[in-house]
Every structure is written in C-alpha cells, then in structure tokens.
C-alpha cells in the first residue's frame, strides 16, 4: 500500500471541504454535558477524598470504604474492625483506596469513549474533525495501559462487594441491633445495586466469563452467565452514569449526616 501523509496527493483527492463539519444538529451538546458531568464528579471526588466525616450511625461513606486507617477511621467504619494502616498513617482514608475504583472507571470502555470525546476531542462527535495533528490511539504509552482494565475490574468486584456489605450493615442501629431502617439504608442499597450492575456489566467481565471462548456449547453455564452479563453490558453506559450519581448522592448523604447537616427522624 502506498504510504500517505496528511498532505499527500491521496489526501488532496478527497473532497476539499474546509469546514470542520457540515453537521447541522447540536452535536456539541452530548460532549458538553459529558464534560460537565465528569468534571463535577471529579470535583466532588477530590473534596470527598480529603473529608474525614466517614461514619454516621450505621452508615459508611462509600468514597471511604473500605476504611483501612486506624488513625482516621472510627471503630464502626473499619471493615471487620480491621485497620491495617496503623496510627502512623494520618492522611484521609479515601487516599488509600480511591485509585482502584478510579482506575476501574478511567480504563472502562464506556468512560474511555466519553472522555476521549468530551475531554480530548478525539473526536468530539462523529464526523466532526478533531483538532489534533497526530493520532496513535492506544498503541503506545501511556494509553496502552488501558489494557490493564481487567485488573482494575478484579479489585472493583471486591469493592462492590464491600459496598454491598456496608449496605447490609446499614440495617443495624448504632448499638449493632438489626432491624433499623432509614433513608440512608435505602440510599446505600440502591447505590450498591447500581455499582454491582455497572461492575458486572463491564466488557472485561463479559470476556472473562465466556467471551474468550469459541465453543459456547461446550460451556453451557459460562454461556448462560455471558448472556446475563451481555444484558447488563448493553446498558453499561446507563449504569456508569447511574452508579456515578448514586455513589455521589450516597457519599454526600452520609457525610452531611456525620456533620449534622442532615438530621431528621427517618434519616
């Protein structure tokens, strides 16, 4: 095949239309909303990472769970009472764990689409020219590291299960007796469900369960799992946004309760 360059004769044989796009619809709206949504999430995440109000009654703030630092995690917030980071660690507990769910979302195939489009404009929308002169995609560092997604998925499963465990514990009262229910319990349960739907709908999960096989018929159980995960995967984008919103709502709710801002009987 003849080598071509951006200014080659072959390039000049294309229709020489000088405008960036001829689209007449509001193609910029989706990337603009995505940019705003992700930006707000990052702002909140940055604040929550350094906030120390992690426990309110039986509720544990999702951004700080599992809470692993003895000095900054109250007794009730520790996973199984376990705090592997001793008194020497005095920084906020969120700093210890947020790289993992953050990395899971950063390398997620859906989020890649969303930030490549809205943050990197590569491309901002279909049939809208990107501003970059060169493009190598995910063929070299640093973007080749996106291939580590499945490892973040493994950790994300553990964190999803811990959030589920936290949601179950929210049905105990402050004294550890079962039977309590409050708005916080409901919020944490909904959050855990959405996070699990997002996590198990991941493309890597779909591949690991059976996507890598060529003979589904020889592995009926894995094939059944693959069909279930494929259903979740078809809504991966929706679960990505829903779980992002729910985790912010749940986290903010618990922190505001811990600060005494939210204080009503059914909280």
């Amino acid at each position, binding site marked *: *095949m*003849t*080598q*071509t*360059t*951006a200014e*080659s004769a*072959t*390039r*000049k*044989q*294309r*229709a*020489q*239309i000088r405008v960036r*796009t*001829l*689209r*007449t*619809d509001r193609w910029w709206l989706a990337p603009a909303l995505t940019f705003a949504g992700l930006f707000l999430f990052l702002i909140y995440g940055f604040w929550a990472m350094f906030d120390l109000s992690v426990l309110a009654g039986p509720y544990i703030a999702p951004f700080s769970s599992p809470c692993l630092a003895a000095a900054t995690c109250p007794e009730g917030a520790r996973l199984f009472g376990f705090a592997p980071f001793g008194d020497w660690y005095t920084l906020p507990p969120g700093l210890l764990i947020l790289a993992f769910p953050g990395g899971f979302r950063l390398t997620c*195939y859906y989020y*890649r*689409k969303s930030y*490549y*489009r809205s943050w990197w404009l*590569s*491309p901002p929308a*279909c*049939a*809208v*020219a*990107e501003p*970059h002169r*060169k*493009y*190598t*995609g*995910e*063929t070299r560092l640093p*973007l*080749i590291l996106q*291939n*580590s*997604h*499945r490892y973040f998925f493994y950790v994300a499963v553990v964190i999803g299960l811990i959030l589920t465990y936290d949601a179950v514990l929210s049905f105990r009262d402050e004294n550890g007796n079962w039977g309590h229910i409050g708005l916080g319990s409901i919020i944490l349960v909904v959050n855990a469900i959405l996070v699990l739907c997002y996590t198990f709908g991941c*493309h*890597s999960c*779909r*591949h690991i369960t059976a*996507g*890598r096989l*060529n*003979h*589904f*018929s020889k592995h009926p159980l894995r*094939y059944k799992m693959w069909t279930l995960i494929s259903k979740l*995967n*078809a809504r991966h984008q929706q679960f990505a946004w829903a779980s992002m919103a729910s985790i912010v709502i749940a986290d903010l709710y618990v922190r505001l309760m811990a600060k005494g801002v939210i204080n009503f009987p059914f909280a």
Partner: protein
Amino acid sequence: MGYKAKFRIWRGEGGEGRLEDFTVEVNEGEVVLDVIHRLQATQAPDLAVRWNCKAGKCGSCSMEINGKPRLGCMTRMSTFEESETITVTPMRTFPVIKDLVCDVSFNYQKAREIPSFTPPADVKPGEYRMQQVDVERSQEFRKCIECFMCQNVCHVIRDHEENKANFAGPRYLMRIAELDMHPYDVADRKESAQDEHGLGYCNITKCCTEVCPEHIKITDNALIPMKERVVDRKYDPLVWLGSKIFKRQR
C-alpha cells in the same frame, strides 16, 4: 403534498470542487436518493451518484447528508424541515472520482490483507459441525452490507490520512473478530490484529456503531471483544502463566 427543497450538492472531480445550490421538487414519501435522481433528470444530467438497490441492502449510495454518513436511499425527506437546506457530499475519507462517487478501493485492499478462513487441516469441507450458539455471535457481523460508512466515519483515518497504511478500519477489524470467534478457525489472528491491522488505534468512540445502517454493534460485540482477546495474548501475565501451567492452547 410536494414542496420545493433547497439542496447544496458537492460537484467536482478528484478532490477539486464546490458545493452547488439547487432547488428541487420533493414529493411525499421520497428519500434523498429520489431527489438526487430528480436533479439528474431535470437540472444536472451529469451529476454522478452510485446506487443500486434502493432498499438499504447493497451499500452503494453511501454519502454524507448534512454532514452525517447516511445511505441516500434510507434517508427520508420527511426527517428534514421543508425550509432546511440539505447539504450532500461524498464520503470524506475516500478519494472522489466524480461528484458523490468515491473510490473505495482502500477497503478492498484492506479486505485482501486479512487471511481467509482457516479450518483445521484434518477437518474436510462437509465435516463441519457447529451448534447455533457457537456461530450466532459472529452471524451478527455477516449482516454487513459493506457500505463503508463505518470506515468513512472512523476518525483514525478520516482525520489522519497517514494512518491508512496501518489501520484496517472497523469493518475489517470486525471481520478479524468474526474469524477469530469462529469455532473452526485455527489461524492466529490476535497478534496480527494488533500489530498488522491496527486494532490499538481504535479508541472505541463508537462512531462506527452509530452510523451502521444494519445496526451491528461493531464496537461492543466485535472490536472490544477483540481488544480483550489481544489483552489475553499480549498484555495479561496471568493468562500467560495459566497457559503455561495448564498447557492450554492460547
């Protein structure tokens, strides 16, 4: 009820050209291709357009309508406002032969670069036995009508002509995925998908899926699964270790 629609159509040869304005009659139930044919019959007899089936199944009349890759025969005029000026250009990733007709030989070249279906040496034609669940995943990809709109919209080559030598494009990466998922294909396609056909260039922004007139989930069902298979082969040390310990064929 008919009305007069305003059209701007690319006219020219070999890249040089301009958008020309036309006012043309539109009748109820018509599609863009009908209107272009009326233009040919009444105002621009030398206007070149490639078409064949007028049923969205041959993939010939791919063009860009108001900047979006569309099939002319499947784009209803009723989707536009009567006052709207409709801009029609050829696909912008390929060289123009004349007016709306492109030279799409890039795609044929890429098709030839992919090794064909390779069954095991000891299985003869007529001896293939496959269950429906084993083949239905790749049957989705067989719906492709080769309109090349996915190739056209993919920014990897649309915005970067220099990548054409190293990137097969979504249509042919989907073909590689189809063969790699085939129960009887034994060719090693994972390394070559990444190293020779440029799978790593894909940043999964899903424009190929958005424009596919057959609604094939190119990104979710072909390109991402293929990327994951490449990870198995090239980037996942656990899979490598597992294949050594359990002597699994990779």
